[in-house]
């Protein structure tokens, strides 16, 4: 007869337990190195206030609370594969409410950057990277170009109606704007991107 999986006192699943033997601080260190201010990860007491307030928790495969725990435990694979990273809209409700000053929004932000550097690819990573590239290029975002680079011709056509309406109201210029010295700006940021 198969033995029942061992449960923690409160019925917490084994993979949700904070087990000293399983802790691996590498991930925490890396997150702190990326985000700086995320140093308070260790003080998370798993109260779940972040998850309770999260606007967008429903479609997430891992709640903000679990995500912080997985970062603490060093479960790289689980965290980097989680869709929670890309469903988080950085609205800072969790960060405002956290009684321990953990700043889950900033932790997630740092983990996103690590995930992109580790080669995680999906629609969100692609969009975020194109977004940054285009700002880097001229210093000022040109939205039609963003749509075209991200969604191709299909997106352009889909958005054409809105684009025309905006143009008629004088709210969409067909020409991009730029700062005075975009090259210098771009080079400095490119250098900063390198780990």
């Amino acid at each position, binding site marked *: 007869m198969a033995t029942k999986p061992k449960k923690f006192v409160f019925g917490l699943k084994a993979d949700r337990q904070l087990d000293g033997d399983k802790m691996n601080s590498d991930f925490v260190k890396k997150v702190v190195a990326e985000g700086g201010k995320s140093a308070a990860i260790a003080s998370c007491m798993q109260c779940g206030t972040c998850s309770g307030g999260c606007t*967008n928790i429903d479609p997430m495969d891992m709640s903000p609370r679990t995500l912080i725990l997985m970062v603490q435990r060093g479960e790289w694979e689980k965290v980097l594969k989680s869709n929670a990273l890309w469903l988080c809209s950085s*609205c800072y409700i969790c960060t405002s409410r956290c009684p321990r000053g953990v700043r889950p929004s900033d932790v997630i*932000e*740092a983990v996103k*950057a690590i995930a992109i550097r580790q080669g995680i690819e999906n629609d*969100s990573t692609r969009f975020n990277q194109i977004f940054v590239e285009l700002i880097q290029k001229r210093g000022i975002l040109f939205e039609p170009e963003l749509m075209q680079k991200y969604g191709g011709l299909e997106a352009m056509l889909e958005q054409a109606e809105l684009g025309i309406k905006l143009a008629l*109201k004088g709210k969409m210029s067909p020409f991009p704007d730029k*700062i005075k010295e975009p090259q210098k700006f771009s080079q*400095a940021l490119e*250098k900063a991107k390198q780990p």
Partner: protein
Amino acid sequence: MKYSYYPGCSLHTTAKEFDISTKVVMQELGIELEELKDWSCCGGSVAAGVSHDVGMAMAARNVALAQKQNLDLLASCSGCYNKSARAAKALKDPTEKDRIMAIMSEMGLSVSDYNIRVRNVVDVLANDVDIASRIKKPLTGLKVACYYGCLLTRPADITGWDSPIFPMSMDKLSEICGAEVVDFRSKTKCCGGPILVSKQDVAFDLTKKLLDEAKSLGADSIVLACPLCDTNLELRQPDIEKKYNVSYNLPIIYITELIGLALGIKPGKLGLQKHLVSTKNLLKKLGL
């Protein structure tokens, strides 16, 4: 009072009326705005999630430019305000300062001492000026839902001038203007702005909840201060109506437009004709 005014990408394009109404209202109130010279994009909520240093440097550049102009930075857009304020805070933090300043000196910007403040237009309007005595046309009979979204008041250690959980500054401003303010429970729930493109269905879901509540409360309009929220609530309103087979036809206006109307400024001068969801009925209700 004089500020270096940072419009940001959106206020020059999709949120033109926010730019126009900010300038007109500030002028009316005797606050001088000098546009931040050579400003660049703040990187929004996205850039720091690609690289923390890149995001911080993008936002910090504008703070450095304002410091060079030696004027407090004033942003209307919640995103531009929040990211600039975050960068300004980091520039005073010894653990972050050097990393950011190194990137900025590569850009050819070397400002070492920072003493300017980063302000949002709602903060200035609610806390610095006396609007009540200048009301010429009370907006009697107008019912509004004030929507704060995320970045205007959160996180509190970056913003700090209104509650991050239950903000009231725009509610109070609207009441001063004579409008009736509904108890909008979702006022700080996120609209899904930063994930609109990559996770459109999810963002539409979040935005729909906001429109549903505002509509059920009988609001004539949602009043806000963020161009990204406006993109979801107004520019994408027809898409949401189509997707869920509902009809809202709910005008979305900026707080500066609302105040401008109460100050007796003509709607055309505030840019109210530039909205994609028509503000005609709203203006008719006010007899304008």
